[in-house]
Every structure is written in structure tokens, then in C-alpha cells.
């Protein structure tokens, strides 16, 4: 089943779950198209009834609802766009571009999507809001699916007997240390023997921060002196991980801006230290990205990928109001899989990234509204 179909299916399941009173004919044997049509008819049938979401009416977002914000914003924007729909003309596409951009989807991505839709609109006979909406939704799902495969979404572990080494890199304050704190707990709960390496010897209090996570999680940690060479901490940690049979070693690194070449070289050095001990390691180099970041996230992904062969992304702070659309752009440009998402500051606020879930989260209200 394609992503688009499965989204539809999930939506339908959700709806029947949530709205018991409003059970429509259960479209058991209905095809996707008719289901889409039905969904769209219900919501778009009456133009006067269609309400643009007023900011004042937004209810506060709770932590558990995590992705709600990004979804509301993204789909809300597209819905708003459709509310003003007259016909598929140039101004419609301009609005669409704006809408996509304002979800941080990225400039080039927004252009690509709307250009493709421009072409498509010529072949399809787009007359109504329904048509337009269906077209947009299909395209978004299609672009998402085409821009990357999800095969790499699983974490790569070393063969048993060797510790799996995961390195975390990224700019300052994105959530590297916190992510490690959360992930250590997850692996520990899976019965793994976890070691942390506090290789951020630069930022004041960084080692203590990771130390505190190690204490909370009840896992071991290797630390170095303040301003010590981070590579030496990494070296010690790798040695310990091998000697004492750890299953997982999580390496925290200092935040650095991707345009700082010296610091980027430092990362390379750390990586080489790991490689010298275990040629196949690190098994993952995860770039931690703050979901509030705009276009610069693509720069970050590019330059970190160049210097330390990033293998995946952790997208943090999705519990905020950021739209998270930048994932689309990064996926498109660099084909880097998102492996985890951060949804808060607590130890449990880390989830394995599920692309269906994410796309569903982003576009759900489109399918519905």
C-alpha cells in the first residue's frame, strides 16, 4: 500500500474512532478515490460554512499532543489557502508557494511542488476546491515518498560482541545532550549496557549536564577535564566500551556552527579516533536539528554531512510551534533519514521517527478538512 493510501486509511480509522455519532456509511469496499471524494465533499461542500481558523480560538497545545502544532499550522495554512480559492490561476499558485514556505518546507521545495502542480493542473481539470485540494495532497505525499526511501530509518547496530557507537553532532543548543539522555534510557530499558562519552569539553557545564543524565538513567559515563581534547575523551570511552563489553556507546559532542571549519575538523578527528579502534564505527553519526530552524537547517545538514558523514537526523523540539516542514527539504536535498524526534524535555519525550506518522501528522487535516 502506498503512503497516500495508508494515510487515507488511517484517517478513516481515526475518524470512525473519534466520531462515533457521526458514523457515515462505512465505506468498506469503497476505493480510495471515492473515500477521498467523500471526505472532501463533507468538508468543502458549503462555502459559507467553511471557517478559517481564528488564532484566538486555538486551544493551548499540550505536550502529549506533540505534533499537533506543526500539523495545525501546516494543514491550517493550506486550508486557509483553499478557503480563498476561486480558480486555479497564477495567484493561487503564488499563495501555495507562500503557504509551503511558511511551513518551513524550504524555498526550493516549495517552488518544486508548486511548479509540478502548475503542470499537473494543466492536464487535470481543476474546477473546484475539492479538485485543488486533492491535487495538492496527492502531490505532497508523492513528493515526500519520492524524495527519500525509508529503508535507512532503523538504527544500525554493530554485530554482537562489538559496541555500537553513535555520535551526536549539531549546532549549539539543538538538543544533543538531551537526546542522548533520553536515548540512553531507551536502550537501557531494552536491556542494553550503555556508556556515555562526555566529549563536549568546551561548553561550561556540559559535562555535568551529561553526568546528570547518566545519573538519572543509571548508566555509565566517561568524562574528561574541562577544555580537555574531546578526542581523548572519545578514545577513553571507546576503549572502555570495548574492554567492558558495552552494547552501546553514545558520544556527546560540543555544539558547533557548520561554517566553523576548525571545529568541523575537530569532529573528523573524533571520528578517526573511533575508527582507529573499531574500523566499522561509528555505526551512526546523527545530526541533531532543532525544528524551529529555518532554511539554515539545510546548510547544517549539508556541511555536517560533508565533514562527518552524517547518517541520520534527530529532529528536536517538535513540541513547540515549529512546523517541521524543513524535514521535507532536507529529505529532498540530502536524502538523510530522520531517525528520532524530540517532543519535550523529559526522558520519555523521544520517539522513533515514523515517516507515515509524520506525514500523517503534517497532512492529516488536509485529508479531513
Amino acid at each position, binding site marked *: 500500500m502506498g503512503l497516500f493510501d495508508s494515510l487515507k486509511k488511517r484517517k478513516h480509522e481515526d475518524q470512525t474512532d473519534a466520531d462515533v455519532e457521526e458514523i457515515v456509511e462505512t465505506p468498506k469496499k469503497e476505493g480510495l478515490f471515492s473515500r477521498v471524494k467523500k471526505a472532501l465533499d463533507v468538508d468543502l461542500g458549503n462555502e459559507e460554512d467553511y471557517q478559517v481558523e481564528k488564532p484566538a480560538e486555538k486551544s*493551548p*497545545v499540550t505536550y502529549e499532543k506533540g505534533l499537533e*502544532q506543526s500539523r495545525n499550522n501546516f494543514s491550517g495554512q493550506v486550508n486557509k489557502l483553499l478557503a480563498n480559492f476561486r480558480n486555479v490561476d497564477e495567484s493561487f499558485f*503564488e499563495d501555495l*508557494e*507562500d503557504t509551503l*514556505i*511558511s*511551513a*518551513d518546507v524550504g*524555498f*526550493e521545495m516549495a517552488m518544486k511542488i508548486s511548479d509540478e502542480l502548475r503542470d499537473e493542473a494543466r492536464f487535470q481539470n481543476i474546477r473546484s476546491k475539492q479538485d485543488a485540494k486533492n491535487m495538492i495532497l496527492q502531490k505532497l505525499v508523492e513528493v515526500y515518498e519520492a524524495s527519500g526511501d525509508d529503508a535507512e530509518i532503523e538504527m544500525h547496530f554493530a554485530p554482537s560482541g562489538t559496541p555500537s557507537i553513535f555520535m551526536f553532532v549539531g*549546532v*549549539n*543548543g*539543538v*538538543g544533543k*545532550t538531551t537526546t542522548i*539522555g533520553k536515548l540512553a534510557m531507551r536502550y537501557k530499558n531494552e536491556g542494553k549496557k550503555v556508556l556515555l562519552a562526555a566529549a563536549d569539553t*568546551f*561548553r*561550561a*557545564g*556540559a559535562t*555535568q*549536564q551529561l*553526568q*546528570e*543524565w547518566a545519573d*538519572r538513567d543509571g548508566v555509565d559515563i566517561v568524562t574528561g577535564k*574541562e577544555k580537555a581534547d574531546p578526542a581523548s575523551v572519545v578514545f577513553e570511552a571507546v576503549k572502555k566500551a570495548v574492554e567492558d563489553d558495552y552494547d552501546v556507546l553514545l558520544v556527546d559532542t560540543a555544539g558547533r*556552527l*557548520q*561554517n*566553523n571549519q576548525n571545529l568541523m575538523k575537530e569532529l573528523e578527528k573524533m571520528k578517526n579516533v573511533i575508527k582507529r579502534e573499531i574500523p566499522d564505527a561509528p555505526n551512526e553519526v546523527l545530526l541533531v536539528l*532543532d525544528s*524551529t*530552524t*529555518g*532554511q*539554515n*537547517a*539545510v*546548510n547544517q545538514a*549539508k556541511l555536517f554531512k560533508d565533514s562527518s558523514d552524517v547518517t541520520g537526523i534527530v529532529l528536536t*523540539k517538535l*513540541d*513547540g*510551534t*515549529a*512546523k517541521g516542514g*524543513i524535514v521535507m527539504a532536507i529529505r529532498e*536535498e540530502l536524502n538523510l533519514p530522520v531517525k528520532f524526534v524530540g517532543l519535550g*524535555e523529559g526522558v520519555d519525550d523521544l520517539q522513533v521517527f515514523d515517516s507515515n506518522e509524520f506525514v500523517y501528522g503534517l497532512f492529516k487535516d488536509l485529508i479531513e478538512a
Partner: protein
Amino acid sequence: MAFENLSSRIESALKNLSGKGKVGENDLDVTLREIRLALLEADVNLKVARSFVNDVRTKALGAKVLNGLNPSEQVIKIVNDELTELMGEVAVPLNKSAKIPTVILMAGLQGAGKTTTVAKLANKFKKEENARPLLIAADVYRPAAIEQLQTLGNQLDIPVFEEGTNVDPRQIVKDGLAQAKKNNNDYVFIDTAGRLQIDEDLMKELKDIQDISKPDEVLLVVDAMTGQNATETAEGFNNALDVTGIVLTKLDGDTRGGAALSIRAVTGKPIKFVGEGEKVDNLDVFYPERMASRILGMGDVLTLIEKAQTDFDEKQAADQLEKLRLNTFDFNDFLDQLKQVQNMGPLEDMLKMLPGMANNPALANMSIDPKDFSHMEAIVQSMTNKERQDPELLVPARRRRIAAGSGRPVIEVNKLIKQFVQMRDMMHRFTNGKGLPSGMESMFGDVDTNEMSNMMGQMGMPSMGGGIGGKIADAAMKRAFKKIQKKKKKRK
């Protein structure tokens, strides 16, 4: 860079305006659309970008710019003026209390850079005013946040007030302020935990802290790399608190920082400081014009264009560039350029408009003798027409003749010819190559100011001047270059 920068986008947007005697409203709208997209690409918020473009439109139509001369330059000028206005015209200093202590409360999202900024600001006042600041550690949530502040305090020899993580931040602030009073601290910085603006409990806590501490400054710290979300965050904090100013951090990255514009627009609060590195002295007072330039991706190129537009013949420059490209650029063109530059006024003044040059001490000692121009002119005028077109002809005997004819020493004639050839070759490479601005940048990366001015003087090419810092290259050369490319396309 992943994206073509804003200035070149605007340049290309303006292509359809420049060269047109009359510019219709439609042309303007096409251009404004491009500008809007360019702003969005720099992470300026959608709503802000839209209203910005509307303002520009109103101004452009109101001023009858479209019927005037050089509509494209005038539109750029309006864009820049509006941008600077939006950023705030002048740097706004920190609010200080008449009675000590001046209390400064920090607020912002997680990971924005509040603690680092506290250390930088406290250190700045300590150094500049011999201040005796106290730092209050009121982030009881993030692991080791207190230790971070303590470590910084130790490094800077600035006292930190803390009560561990088991005391309510409101109480910590109360107690901290009492201690500041007792110890006669003249500044108090309250470092708070990062929080989401939608987190009602934590926002309430921050409001309470504000009520308790009655701060003179509530500084909202925002990461310069923030995307479209910047307005929501800024609005959230601004509505909940009496924000008095903004600190923009991580500007040492390669972001264009359009968030600055968005935040300023939705809060109306001035950006007071910018963080440009992890070291404690990497903090700068905010200069609106510089930020406007940064978002646009140029130096004070606009003033330069403004100056140049009356004297500088774009068409001519484009023709010259085309000649450079084809390697048919000769001494006649060179002479034309000299004249153009002379018309633009003192070279020092032009140099000062380049990014980072305005306060450059080297400029103080530098003056360019207008006589140099006339000497060069004299030399070229003593050449025959054939010689002007083909420097290969200039054998030593001819050079001596030219020297005699112009009344200048042979050395000077030799120097001029050498520079001409160098310049022509270099320009030929540029005009045929890609990556013009960065090429220019590295080209001039190692050249000191004197030499640069020298080169500029000798080469006498306005667009060359732009090479310094690579910024004017964007504005003047790129535009001309694009014209050439356009012409080339047409020919095909």
C-alpha cells in the same frame, strides 16, 4: 550556500525594471513578488514579507518612481530604506535604572543562548564600566544549568547566586535580589530556563518573576537561525511579558537571519545586542543598517548605487564587461571607466560604503590623489588609437614616446600598462567564470587596504571596486554580468 542570496535575487527581479524607460505597475508587481520570495528565502516571516512588500509598493507608486529615472535603483533604495526602518533606525542602548541595581531578565526558548548571553553582557559591563554584576541562576529545570552559569561566573570572576534546583525560581529571584541589595551590586542578571511560549505554567512562572523583580530590561533571546516560527515565539513572549529588547544569537553562522526582521516587526521591540560567537567577548551592539544589509546580502551597496546612478552609465558598464569577456577590452574603455569613477566622487567615500570599511582605521591615512586620475588619462591619451586597442603593440620605444607625450615617467607608463593587462586578464576570467562573488572575495582576501585602493584607483572601474569584500560584485558586476548573459541567450 544552498541558496542564491537575496541581493542577487533582487537583482534578477529588477532586471525587468532596469533599462526600461517606463515601468508599469505590472512590472513592479513581478519584481515585488520576487522580492517577497527572496525575503522568505532569508527566513523572513511570510506575513512580515507580505506587508513589507505592500509598503514598498505603496511607496514606489506614491513617489511616481516608475516614471522617473532609473526605476530599478529607486526600488532598491525604497527596499533598503524600508528594511532599515523596520529594523529600527538607530542602535538602542540598554535601559538603566536610576537607582542600582539595574535588573535584566532573560527569556527565550530552550537552547537560544540565554546563559551565554548573560555571561557576555555581565562581562561587558564589568569591563567597560567596572560594574559589579550579580548573576541569578533561576533555571532549575535543565540539568546542570546552574553549573553552567557558575562555571562562567568563575571564569569571569563574577558572583553567581544560586539555591540549587529544589527551590522555586520565584523564591530564588527574591533571595537573589535581596543579596544584590546587600552587596550593592549594580547589575543583576536573571538567567531563566528555556521554555516554549505555549507552556502556560512556565510562562506564568516567568511573569511572576517579572512581577517580583521589576526588571529594567526584559531581553528576549532568539536564535538567528529561526525559521518561520520566529513570529509565533516572539509574539508569545511579547504578549506574556513586557519585553524591552531582543538579543539575536548565533549570528556567526551562515544564516541570513531574516528572523530578525520578523521579530522586530511583530514585537516592535528593538534588537539591542547580537551574539557572534561562543567566546565571552563575541557580543556586539546591534546596528540596524548592518543587519538590513546582511539580510539583503550586501554591504552599503545601496548608497553606492544611489550615488552612482546619476553618473554611472549602466549600459556602458555592461558593454565594457562584454568586451572583457570577449577580451576586446581596450585602453579606450579603460579611459571611459576612469572618467566614470572620477564622476562618482572621492574614492575614500566610496570605500567607506563597503561592508566593514567604514570604521577601518586604514582609511584615515588613505587619500587618493585626483591627480593620479589625470595622469593616467594623459598617458592613455598619448597612445595612438591602434595602441589603445592592442597593448601588444606597446614595445619599449613606443612606451618612451608615450611617456614623453604625456609628460609622465616611463616607469609610470609601464606600470599602467601592466595593470591594465592584469586587470583585463583577471576580469576576463571573472566574466567567463562562475561563482563571481566568492571568486572576487578570495581574490581580494589577502590584499591590504592600501593596495586595494591603489588597484581601484588604477583600474578605475566601479564594478571592480565592488570586488572588495565581494559585495559590490553582487550588485554592480552581477547585474552587468546577468545582462550579458541575457544578451548571450538572446543571440542563441
